[in-house]
């Protein structure tokens, strides 16, 4: 696949090397220190850092401003953008704002429903959905045009990504849905956290059967478990999450003070196994409020040092 943007993430993927991305959630306040600290902690160990966009619908410092912070530190941000909170004017405007700071990666999402967050009585927008946002960004970049058809002076240059959940229902459309996102313009995919490796491998097989692994870079998503309690919560309470009983059992069978270590072990073993899966082009490590573990995971999984491109 040819490189179309100045994105470092795109260059690494195009070079055939396994990419590593991670993500940081912005703080619930205006102090940028949290983002700076998280970015500094992991910068040597990842190729790009996603900044979440009011994840779980909880109001936070905005993704765009946090991405600018990282960019000013010389890091490579991935701007996550949900369609929940902004109409097409605001989405395009924020894309231009990000492009003005040479932010070269975007991840297009619909976003969690607002009822999960701190503004449950608010409206949601969803003027576009995530597939339509993919189309919009690609058109802005490739044709230099706004939704309305007018020309953009200095179009954005962004490597365009989407999320995929191989575990959500209904399973029969999980691969068609990926195909649809690729048709809409997705160039890279970051998946939902993978705990059920058998099911993920089955999904990847179906992805390969349709040749989709040659049309999009798939980064396998991983979130290390901190405890058996977290595993149970993820299994039972988080929509669209598939945590097999073995994972819960393995953590429950570990003494409490060793469960976090065991969670890291599981994560590293998963990476080792996923490296063997044809079509997996890298890893997206989402260590939720546990960013300090990213360096260890990357090192122990044999993904360090990161390539220089």
């Amino acid at each position: 696949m040819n490189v179309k943007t100045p994105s470092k993430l795109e260059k690494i993927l195009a070079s055939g090397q396994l990419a590593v991305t991670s993500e940081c959630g912005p703080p619930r306040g205006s102090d940028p220190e949290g983002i700076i600290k998280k970015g500094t902690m992991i910068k040597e160990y990842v190729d790009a850092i996603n900044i979440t966009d009011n994840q779980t619908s909880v109001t936070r410092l905005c993704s765009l401003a946090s991405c600018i912070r990282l960019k000013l530190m010389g890091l490579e941000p991935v701007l996550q953008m949900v369609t929940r909170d902004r109409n097409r004017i605001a989405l395009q405007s924020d894309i231009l704002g990000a492009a003005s700071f040479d932010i070269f990666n975007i991840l297009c999402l619909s976003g969690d429903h607002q009822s999960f967050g701190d503004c449950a009585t608010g409206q949601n927008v969803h003027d576009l959905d995530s597939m339509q946002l993919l189309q919009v960004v690609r058109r802005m970049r490739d044709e230099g045009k706004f939704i309305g058809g007018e020309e953009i002076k200095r179009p954005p240059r962004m490597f365009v990504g989407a999320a995929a959940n191989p575990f959500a229902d209904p399973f029969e459309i999980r691969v068609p849905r990926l195909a649809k996102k690729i048709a809409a313009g997705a160039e890279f995919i970051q998946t939902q956290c993978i705990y059920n490796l058998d099911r993920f491998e089955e999904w990847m097989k179906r992805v390969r059967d349709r040749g989709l692994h040659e049309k999009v870079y798939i980064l396998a998503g991983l979130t290390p478990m901190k405890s058996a309690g977290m595993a149970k919560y993820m299994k039972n309470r988080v929509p669209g999450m598939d945590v097999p009983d073995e994972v819960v059992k393995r953590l429950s069978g570990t003494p409490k003070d060793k469960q976090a270590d065991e969670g890291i072990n599981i994560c590293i073993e998963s990476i080792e196994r996923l490296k063997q899966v044809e079509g997996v082009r890298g890893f997206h490590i989402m260590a939720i409020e546990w960013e300090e573990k990213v360096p260890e995971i990357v090192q122990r999984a044999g993904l360090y040092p990161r390539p220089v491109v």
Partner: protein
Amino acid sequence: MIVGKQKSIDEVWAMIQGYKKVLVFGCNTCVAVCHAGGNKEAEVMASMLRMKAKQENVDIDIQDSGIERQCEHEFFESVTERIEWADAIVSMACGIGVQFTAEKFSTKPLMPGINTTFLGATEKPGVWTEKCQACGNCILGMTAGICPIARCAKRLMNGPCGGSTKGKCEISKDLDCAWQLIIDRLTALNRLNEYETLIPIKDWSTDRAGGPRKVVREDVMV
């Protein structure tokens, strides 16, 4: 049809404070089918308000009346006198009927007796569900006859989202995922291949976004 849900007696009672003659005014079509604001419900509401007045020892005359539809001029003739009698009206109609009645009687204070909830259907006695948001540009032909605008919590045109679990929506286990229903129906119709057709960006100008809407048909004007 338009589905509604009665306001609590306490809320209606609070709204009519200070009036001496109150008419609880039913609307006997849509909101009668959902047992919220028909003429029978108006009668019951009036009776409960009278009990409340008695309990609170308030001197107020509360009567009830009703017509077939509060959204058409022709039905009002028979009740003009009753409406003139009252110094306030509690309309049991949907928001349309409340406003239409208010426009006809411009000096008459008018309060809503119900909350207009949605455009929906009767699933079974006692259960009504939303089916349409009147976006003004029907896409049911592209979505196997199931509307994601009205029935997906994120109104996704190209769903389902990653939160769809066992056929249910991420916001409630009691809510069907509209996209699961669409996929099931496409499967039943042997048209699942159509799932991969991208539904384009929607023109919302025919929706609320375009401002209050109006249909004018000169061919049927009298």
